[in-house]
């Protein structure tokens, strides 16, 4: 009796897992199946749109033959450096403005909104002149694009720290650093992380923009896609897009994991 019910329980558990998996990913699965079917039937012309299986096979071939690894690393490193810079600068700045110097923030905010609208790609030639090195200019552009969402969200987070929490901390004689570390930073964490996620999106956008403009040293996924376009390698284009989407997803997911870890401790 007992064994049977345990078995039933296990089966039920597996079933529940499968079910929740389906609910979560059903849209993606259907999308890919539909895409594949339409490709096989011939609705999608392979000269313009590759089928999912073709994309995955091509991507795999490109990776194992080492034709795209360098490009992936270039893009990845540029984006990581740019976003790290943005995080290092925007989070402290956000706290200074949102938490400690609210009056300055009031006057600076309109200026920041103006700067935020400004597209750094348009001044790329000037940046190259100033920085001389191409890599640095790419990183600066990624940093520029990524910092605004992080800054804005940090300011919002710092401003919205519940004053009672600070009172609680003060009442227990915590010093200013501890109040910042244990209360102010901790309670704005979720705001900061949604800022970082948005920053990653715009950072990638800018990275591909710069690379596709061909103004870099001729490396990076954006350049790879651009190059494949020139050579008419349709499946290479799609493989490049596939890989860059995966990269962005990967970084966002790892940021989510970091957030989860920090929130537990």
């Amino acid at each position: 009796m007992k064994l049977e019910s345990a078995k039933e329980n296990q089966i039920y558990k597996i079933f529940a897992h499968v079910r929740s998996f389906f609910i979560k990913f059903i849209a993606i699965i259907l999308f890919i199946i539909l895409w594949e079917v339409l490709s096989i039937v011939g609705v999608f012309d392979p000269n313009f749109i590759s089928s999912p299986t073709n994309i995955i096979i091509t991507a795999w071939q490109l990776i194992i033959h080492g034709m795209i690894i360098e490009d992936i690393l270039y893009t990845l490193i540029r984006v990581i450096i740019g976003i790290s810079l943005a995080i290092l600068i925007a989070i402290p700045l956000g706290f200074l403005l949102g938490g400690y110097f609210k009056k300055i923030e009031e006057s600076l905010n309109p200026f920041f909104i103006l700067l935020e609208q400004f597209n750094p790609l348009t001044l790329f030639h000037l940046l190259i002149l100033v920085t001389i090195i191409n890599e640095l200019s790419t990183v600066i552009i990624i940093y520029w694009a990524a910092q605004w969402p992080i800054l804005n969200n940090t300011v919002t987070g710092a401003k919205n720290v519940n004053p009672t929490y600070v009172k609680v901390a003060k009442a227990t004689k915590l010093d200013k650093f501890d109040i910042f570390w244990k209360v102010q930073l901790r309670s704005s964490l979720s705001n900061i992380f949604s800022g970082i996620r948005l920053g990653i999106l715009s950072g990638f956008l800018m990275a591909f923009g710069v690379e596709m403009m061909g103004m870099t040293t001729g490396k990076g996924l954006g350049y790879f896609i651009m190059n494949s376009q020139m050579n008419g390698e349709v499946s290479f284009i799609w493989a490049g897009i596939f890989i860059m989407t995966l990269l962005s997803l990967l970084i966002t997911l790892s940021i989510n994991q970091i957030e989860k870890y920090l929130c537990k401790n």
Partner: protein
Amino acid sequence: MNLNLSNFNENTKIIKGHDNISEVKEELAVNGKEITGPPKIRIDNVKKIFKTKNNKTSKIEDFIALNDVNLDIYKGEFLVVLGPSGCGKSTLLDILGGLSPASEGEVKIDDNVITEPGLDRGIVFQQYALLPWRNALKNVTFPLENNKKDAESEEIARKYLALVGLSSFEDRYPHELSGGMKQRVAIARALAIDPEILLMDEPFAAVDAQTRAILQEDLLKITENTKKTVIFITHSIDEAVFLADRVAVMTARPGTIKEIVNIPFSRHHRIATDFKNNSDFISLRRRVWDLLKEEVIKSQEITEKRIKFEENENIDGGGI
């Protein structure tokens, strides 16, 4: 019990100085409290002024929140500060807690003037004020972490969670707790530093009526067992009369102490008997309400147009 309530409608006095200590001691002796020594907390001519901007003239003006507050609180006493909303009760508690300085006057604890927060005072704030990213246990260890090792502070926290009856809920996060439980955790957090004085700022205001009744009883028991001096702020007359050894009634803004009402029943009596339905309770409540009513009206600024019953002469012919 023989109550002298003949001076119900006596013109109430605004307390300008401190009470006669020996008189107060006699009063408190009736409550089953033996008072030894000078007042534990002495509030001396405290005044609090905020600078505010007038919307019409946009000039900076003085906003007097508290004016000449004088109050003595004795060791082991449960003093309830009762006043209309906006009379500066919470401001007074902030000053006692050392979270904001008095503009004039001073507050002394055992002859030491308060200038900053201290671990001799535990504060229970309005609206729970639990840190939502910490579970119940970690919320209680929060004030201990700086001075004690993790294991030690967790042990203390467990002890106080048990005291408020939440032993099996230590892993729960605030959003998983009911309002009453949250406030119990907040009380445990305030007690965890083992303060001599417990400051409570309308702690039960956000809790439903039935839970509140239970919390009040438990609070009385806990404070009696732990021998804390309690200053409890509320705007609920029932709560004040039920909990207090003495009720300090405040005036409308600028807040000052209007009168101190002694509640001549021991805590044991209040818990053990059906005190809230007792005629003594009702007459005390009536007396406090008489003191407070005028201030409430003042604070709501409706003095000019008090709503009156319309004196309808032909009641028989009235209606539809």
